[in-house]
């Protein structure tokens, strides 16, 4: 039998051997299937109601210790439930639920929110639920073709406090938002457990290119935050070039203040303080790394920045 880890490029393994606490557990975890997660759309349903309905179907659900609205299920056809049809639940990778959770308190009183790279709408619809459909979310995406899915999901979930815009964020006009959420395009290494397809595009050169784009996006995103507001930057990759180095870049360019991320019952790991020839600003340590083997999720990185 061919182990899937044979397909993981050697360069990839070498890159992360020194960064991760337990290399063996990390690589073993990448070989396992990621649990299928979904979120209860609280605009239409409650976790208790969904639990009861799924129990009637004989589908067992596992609770997610760090998020009361999320569940895990082994059932491959959750997408064929009545509750999925009505938009009472939304299929979403667990780690991708983290950015809104990291700003949940701020969201509850926010009036103007920008989701800078919004398609296909997971975070937009999650935030609309947290805001109880009040205030305004500008859900922007630079790709018109991806907006189709965003629009479909936004309407299906009933996230109506939303305006969808189609603009390269770097050219976004001067506006001010209480919260800016930036889940940027990335090399997606953290989604390996869903598909090994990630490696077909993977190269250190690609990481470098995308890192340059991310630096432009984070600076622009910060400029769109109103004084007293919050920026949340995230990726689904392990690459320090796309994570710590991007946050470090922002701290050099702007008077940004890092804020600590604390999500009860979620194991958060510290960021790296240096990588190759770069030493990062000590403030970067407030960012959060989520390793797959710690919480049985995809890989993720989050930075919360105040203005």
């Amino acid at each position: 039998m061919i182990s899937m880890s044979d397909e993981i490029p050697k360069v990839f393994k070498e890159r992360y051997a020194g960064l991760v606490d337990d290399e063996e557990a990390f690589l073993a975890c990448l070989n396992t299937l990621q649990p299928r997660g979904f979120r209860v759309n609280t605009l239409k349903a409650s976790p208790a109601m969904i639990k009861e309905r799924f129990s009637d179907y004989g589908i067992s659900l596992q609770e997610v210790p760090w998020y009361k609205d999320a569940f895990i299920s082994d059932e491959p056809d959750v997408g064929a439930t009545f509750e999925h049809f009505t938009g009472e639940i939304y299929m979403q990778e667990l780690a991708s639920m983290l950015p809104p959770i990291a700003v949940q308190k701020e969201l509850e009183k926010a009036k103007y929110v920008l989701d800078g790279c919004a398609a296909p709408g997971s975070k937009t619809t999650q935030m609309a639920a947290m805001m109880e459909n009040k205030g305004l979310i500008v859900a922007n995406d630079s790709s018109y073709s991806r907006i189709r899915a965003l629009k479909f999901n936004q309407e299906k979930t009933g996230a109506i406090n939303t305006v969808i815009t189609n603009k390269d964020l770097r050219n976004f006009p001067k506006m001010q938002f209480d919260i800016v959420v930036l889940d940027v395009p990335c090399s997606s290494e953290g989604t390996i457990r869903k598909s090994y397809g990630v490696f077909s595009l993977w190269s250190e050169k690609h990481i470098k290119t995308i890192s340059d784009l991310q630096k432009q996006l984070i600076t622009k995103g910060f400029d769109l935050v109103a004084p007293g507001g919050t920026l949340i930057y995230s990726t689904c990759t392990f690459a320090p070039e796309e994570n710590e180095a991007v946050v470090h870049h922002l701290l050099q360019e702007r008077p940004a203040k890092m804020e600590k991320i604390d999500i009860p019952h979620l194991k958060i790991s510290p960021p790296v303080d240096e990588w190759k020839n770069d030493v990062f600003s000590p403030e970067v340590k407030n960012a959060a790394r989520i390793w797959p083997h710690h919480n049985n999720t995809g890989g993720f990185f989050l930075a919360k920045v105040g203005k």
Partner: protein
Amino acid sequence: MKEMLFGYLEKRFGIPASVFAEHEFYAASKGRVYIGPKKAISEPNVVSVGMLAARISRTVKPSTNLLQLFGRHATKNTIKLDRENTLKYVRGEDIEVETDATGGYVLLAYKGSPIGCGFLEKGSVKNLLPKAKRAQLKFL
């Protein structure tokens, strides 16, 4: 336009205008009305504001998404479907029902969850579910 929609939803379904207090309505071309945030923006490059709430011509046709979101507030002209009819309706088929609802647009519901909008005429409900929403349900 807004008054016409409010009037219709109240009269036909018993959905009071007060449930829309946190939202605003926006008129678009071809009689389409969108429900969105109280305060929207008009640039840059706006693709859509909120979601389609209804199409208004001589009559008012509420959207599936509107009824799914606000249908819980309805007190009349609601048809509670059984499992079999829900399966059929979600597949995109017309269904036969026994109901005391009057002819016209009706709200369809299953297990207390609104499914969407149908058109009732002589005991038959015409399927108005958008094609993109059709599904083969395995669990219901």
